[in-house]
């Protein structure tokens, strides 16, 4: 009997152990553990780079895009410490990443390629407003397993935004990009300008050519542009920036130069641009 009992006990023990393992493994799937937080993350364009470099830990970052160190990349200093990976299917596959962060890099078929090879991607869209940015921060930080970091960042941004004083009479303004284009409704720059208490004179949605005639007829008091050094030096031959009318405007009106890194991609530092504009505007009103 004792052997029979022992046999039964053994069988039950084995059964219990088996059950335990099964339950244990089931539990492991539903609760995030160290294995499911991505540890080999690559960002494949300079917009995605900003998010990875801010919201990822150093151990998670496998590499960033070659332009992560360009002058218009906000996180360029930190980016220097990491590998640069060209967003080609070959190079990405060879590195065996467990998460890709992407805004526009790699070409139109990269998403399909990555999903065919079962590599998770988090797609950041083109961000048109500060609200979009907050949402993206939350999404990316969650995907990276760093939720708290994301939440804290968003809270800070909201607090700072509330601190920007609201002015009733907003000055008419125009944004000039070096390529000779300006922006109207539905773009991030437009949102930044509005939250900085400027009234964008351009009502055409999206990006359009700098309207010379509107410069003259609507007379924006403030010109916002995105190059710290001379705007003309970075503009190609066809830019409206070279026209004598535009030059007169730049000379005679208040021009706010925003570092290109702040507006090249929508991210948490876009609020810096709002604060900058608001500050200059207040000074302009005072004087």
């Amino acid at each position, binding site marked *: 009997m004792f052997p029979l009992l022992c046999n039964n006990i053994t069988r039950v023990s084995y059964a219990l152990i088996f059950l335990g393992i099964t339950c244990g493994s089931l539990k492991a799937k539903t609760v995030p553990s160290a294995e499911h937080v991505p540890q080999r993350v690559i960002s494949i364009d300079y917009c995605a780079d900003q998010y990875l470099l801010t919201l990822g830990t150093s151990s998670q970052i496998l590499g960033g895009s070659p332009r992560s160190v360009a002058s218009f990349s906000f996180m360029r200093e930190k980016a220097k410490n990491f590998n640069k990976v060209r967003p080609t299917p070959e190079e990405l596959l060879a590195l065996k990443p467990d998460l890709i962060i992407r805004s526009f890099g790699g070409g139109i078929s990269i998403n399909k390629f990555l999903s065919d090879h079962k590599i998770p991607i988090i797609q950041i869209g083109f961000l048109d407003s500060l609200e979009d940015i907050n949402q993206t921060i939350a999404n990316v930080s969650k995907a990276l397993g760093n939720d708290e970091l994301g939440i804290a960042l968003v809270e800070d941004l909201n607090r700072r935004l509330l601190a920007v004083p609201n002015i009733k009479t907003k000055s008419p303004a125009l944004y000039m*990009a*070096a*390529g*000779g*284009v300006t922006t109207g409704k539905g773009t991030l720059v437009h949102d930044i300008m509005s939250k900085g208490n400027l009234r964008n004179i351009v009502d*055409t*949605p*999206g*990006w*359009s*050519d700098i*309207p*010379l*005639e*509107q410069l*003259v*007829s609507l007379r924006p008091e403030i010109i916002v542009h995105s190059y710290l050094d001379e705007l003309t*030096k*970075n*503009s*190609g*031959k*066809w*830019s*409206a920036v*070279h*026209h*004598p*009318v535009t030059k007169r405007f730049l000379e005679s009106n208040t021009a706010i130069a925003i570092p290109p890194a702040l507006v090249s991609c929508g991210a948490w530092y876009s609020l810096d641009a709002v604060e900058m504009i608001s500050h200059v505007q207040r000074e302009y009103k005072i004087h």
Partner: protein
Amino acid sequence: MSKKKLYYLLISFSLIVIFLGCLAGPTKIPIITSLKTIFGIGNSLEHTIIWEIRMPRTLAAYLVGLSLGASGAALQGLLRNPLAEPGVLGVSACASLGATIVIYYGIAQSFTYSVPLAAVSGALIGTTFLAIIAEKANSVTTLILIGVGISSLAGAGMALLTSIAPNPFYLSDMVTWMLGSVANTSTFDIALCIPFLCVGFLLLRKQINGLSVLTLGEETAGTLGLNLARNRMLVVLSTGILTGAAVSLAGVIGFVGIVAPHLIRPLVEHDPGKAIVPSALLAAIILVVADIAVRLFPTNSEIKLGVVAALIGAPIFIMIVYRRNNFYEQN
């Protein structure tokens, strides 16, 4: 149509379209006010819009049209081919490449005349190469295919420059080079090109009779006293200079140099020399009208002038090729 009547019509239309060019734009200015401003009475806002924004671009379109129309007619006379034109034959693309090199390597900033000079040099390389090849090319098709090749090569050169250029905005600049535009032209830009346009026209003027007599073929024309080598060289030189100047002002604008001579030739009894000046005037009128259309068409970003020129000109080009009657086929 008599010569006098033709010129009368062309010059009248020129004045009309230039005038309309001063009236057309996104800012609504009443016609009476516009008229007053054109004649010097008006406030500074309207004066700025009409004299500093609309007039320069209208004049630029006119001058570019003059150059391309004359160059097209001249090349057609020299090569004895109704499909010859700086755009189609790749000359404009070469000019564009020349100018692009100078701008992207920063030379333009230190020496203002560098852009038109570089454009003219590029155009001259293109026209010289064509003139040499044309002697050996045994058919129209060969010549045009070579032109397509030259155009593609120059375009590839520009694309290469854009890939290695440091500034990402240069991509949109390149698009404008290849599609053509007179938006944002200032009087300074025009003034920069005027010397080149003058030299080009003066050189071409003397070759008009020579181009007429080339109707008989090179051998016969030579026996009638035409200095073939000199004629060829001067036509090549003048069309290169005119095309280069036009491209430095407005980028690559194609087909208008085919359309205008094609429409004018029946009115000048198919004399290629006599077609030059009227073709220049007609091409100028066409381009100003195209620029007005570009300004008024309701899109976010202005359509490029070269696009409208191609939309008008390419179908006519295809029609000429398709309907090339027995006369041209035999020749």
